[in-house]
C-alpha cells in the first residue's frame, strides 16, 4: 500500500533538536483541568506511543498540537518556533496531519470532497477559483483503491454511505497521502478488523522509517510496545512516564497505567 518514495529515510535515533516541543502545558475545559504541566518533546523520525487510560488527556493533548484548541497555559514549539496562533490550518500548513479520534469527516459531503476539504484543487476561470472536479475524483478514487476499500465505493457518493471501518481507513489514507512531517493517529485502530489493525501498525512503522514523526495514541500498551521507539504515559492529565521502549517491558508499563488508575479512583476528585 504505502511505498516509501521520497527517499527521506533517516535512521531512527534522536537528532538533537525536537520537532515539536511542549513546555509546561496546561488546559482546562471550564473549571475541569484536563492537562496539568505537561512537558514533552517529539523528534523527527521517531514513533512515539502516547498511552494512558480513558480520560487521561491524550486526545486533549493532540487537539492542542493539531491547533484545534489553544492551551490555557504553557508553550508549544514547532521546529523551534513558538506557536502563538492556534488553528488547524496552521498545523496542516506546517506539515502536520492528524487522524482525529471522533471527527474529521463531513457526512453530507462526497468521498472526494471530504478528501480535499480545506485544500481543494482549483482551476481558474476568469481568475475565479473553480473546483477541479476531475482531479478531485481521480485523486480520491486512486486513494480509495490503493487502500483497499471495496470497489463499489463511488467517490461521488456521500461519505455517510461508508461503514465505520471504511471511514476510519479513509481517514488514515487521507492523512498518509498528504503526509508531510508529522502524522498523529488518535486510536486509529478503532472500528478496524484484526487484519486492518496489523496493516495500520505496519503503516506507522513505514512512515517513521520514511523520516516522519509519528505519534500513535492508544490505550493498548502491548500493541504499541511492539512498534514504538518511545512510550509516553499520561495519567489524569499529567505525564507520568516518558521512556525509550527498550527501557521498560510492556508488563511494567501496564503496571504503571493500572496502578495510576487505581490510585486515582481512591483519591477524592477535586472539582
Amino acid at each position, binding site marked *: 500500500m504505502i511505498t516509501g518514495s521520497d527517499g527521506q529515510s533517516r535512521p531512527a535515533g534522536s537528532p538533537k533538536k525536537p520537532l515539536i516541543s511542549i513546555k509546561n502545558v496546561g488546559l482546562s475545559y471550564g473549571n475541569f483541568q484536563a492537562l496539568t504541566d505537561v512537558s514533552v518533546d517529539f523528534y523527527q523520525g521517531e514513533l512515539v506511543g502516547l498511552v494512558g487510560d480513558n480520560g487521561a488527556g491524550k486526545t486533549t493533548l493532540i487537539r492542542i498540537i*493539531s491547533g*484545534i484548541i489553544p492551551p490555557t497555559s504553557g508553550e508549544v514549539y514547532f521546529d523551534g518556533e513558538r506557536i502563538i496562533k492556534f*488553528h*488547524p*490550518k496552521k*498545523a*496542516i*500548513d506546517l506539515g502536520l496531519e*492528524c487522524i*482525529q479520534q471522533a*471527527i*474529521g*469527516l*463531513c*457526512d*453530507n*459531503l462526497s468521498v472526494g*470532497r471530504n478528501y*480535499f*476539504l*480545506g*485544500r*481543494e484543487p*482549483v482551476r481558474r476561470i476568469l481568475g*475565479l*477559483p*473553480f*473546483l477541479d472536479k476531475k482531479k478531485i475524483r481521480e485523486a480520491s478514487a486512486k486513494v480509495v483503491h490503493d487502500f483497499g476499500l471495496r470497489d463499489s465505493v463511488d467517490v461521488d*457518493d*456521500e461519505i*455517510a*454511505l461508508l461503514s465505520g471501518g471504511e471511514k476510519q481507513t479513509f481517514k488514515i489514507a487521507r492523512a498518509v497521502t498528504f503526509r508531510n512531517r508529522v502524522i498523529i493517529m488518535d486510536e486509529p485502530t478503532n472500528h478496524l478488523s484484526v487484519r486492518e489493525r496489523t496493516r495500520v501498525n505496519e503503516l506507522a512503522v513505514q512512515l517513521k522509517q520514511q523520516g516522519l514523526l509519528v505519534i500513535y495514541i492508544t490505550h493498548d500498551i502491548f500493541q504499541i510496545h511492539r512498534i514504538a521507539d518511545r512510550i509516553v504515559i499520561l495519567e489524569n492529565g499529567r505525564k507520568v512516564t516518558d521512556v525509550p521502549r527498550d527501557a521498560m517491558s510492556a508488563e511494567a508499563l501496564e503496571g504503571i497505567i493500572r496502578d495510576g488508575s487505581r490510585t486515582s479512583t481512591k483519591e477524592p476528585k477535586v472539582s
Partner: protein
Amino acid sequence: MRAAIAHLVRRHPEGGTVTLVVLISLTFAIVTGGSWLSTGNLQSLSQLTAVLAIMAFGEAIVIATGQIDISVGSVSGIGALTFLGLAPVVGSGFGLVAALLFGVLIGGINGVFVAFLGIPSLLVTLGTLFLFQGIGYAVTSGFSFAASNVVRKQFIYNGFGGGTVAGVNTGVIWALTILVVLQLAVFEMPVGNRLLAIGGDAASSFSRGVNVTRIKFGVFVVSGVLAALSGALDAAFIGYADGSFGAGMELSAIAAAVLGGCHLAGGRISLIGTLLGAFILRGIQSFLIILGVQPQWYILVVGLIVVLAGLADRTLTRLVLKR
C-alpha cells in the same frame, strides 16, 4: 428500485419540488379555467416569485451552514424604506447603494453575534427581526414613502425592479442572475464546499483547516444584502413602502427554502429548488386571490406546507442515508 429512487433523491434534492410545481400549475390552471395561466397573472407571479426567491436564496445559504436567519423580513423592509426614502433626495443609484449597505450592516451584526460570540442564530436574528421592524415603524411613523415621477424615470429605478425588459420585470432578471452566481459559488467553488461542510459537521470542517468563523459570518452578510436587495426590488415595483414592508416575509423565505429541499439541519441545500419553492408559495397565494379567499388563509397554508415539507424531508433523508 428503491436504490434507484434513493440515488435520484440524493443527486437531485429538488426533484420532489419540480413534481409539485407541475402538479400545482396544472391544478390551478384547470380550477381557474385558465385565468391562472393568463399573461397578466404570470407576469405578476414571476415578479412576486423573484423577490421572494432572492430573499430565500440568502436564507438557503444560511441554512446550508446549519443556522437560520429570521431577520430577513425586517431587513427587506429596511432595504425598501431606504431605497424609496433616499431615491428622491440622492437619486436611485445612491439610494440603492445605501439600501444594500444597510443589508450588509444588519447581516454583519447578525454575523458578529453568531460567528464571533457564539450566540444561537435563532436568538440573534429574532432580536434583529424585531429591532429593525421597530426602526422601520419609527422612521416612517405612520407615513409612507412613495416614488416620485422623477424617480420613476430613473434608469437604476427601472433596472432594479421598477421596470420591465420584454415584458419581464427586471427583478426577475436579477433573481436569475443571483441564482447562477450562487449556484456556481456553492457547488463549484472551494468556498461552497467549505460552507456545506460546516453545515454537515462544523467540528470536522474546523479540524481540516476550514475557517468556520469567517464563513458563518459571511453567510449572514450575504443573507442581509440579498434581503435588502429583495426589499428594494419589490419597493421599486410597488412604488410605495411603509413601516410594515416585508413583515412576515421571513416565514415565506424559510418555507421556500425548506420546500425547495434545503435541510434545516444544514449541509444540504438546493438553490434551484428554493426558486421553485418560492414559485409554489407565490402560486398558491395568487390562486387564493383569484378564488377570492381571504389573504389570511395564505399564512395557514404556508404553515401546513412547512410542516408537510419537514415530514417529507425526514422521510427522504432516511431513504437517502439507507444503503
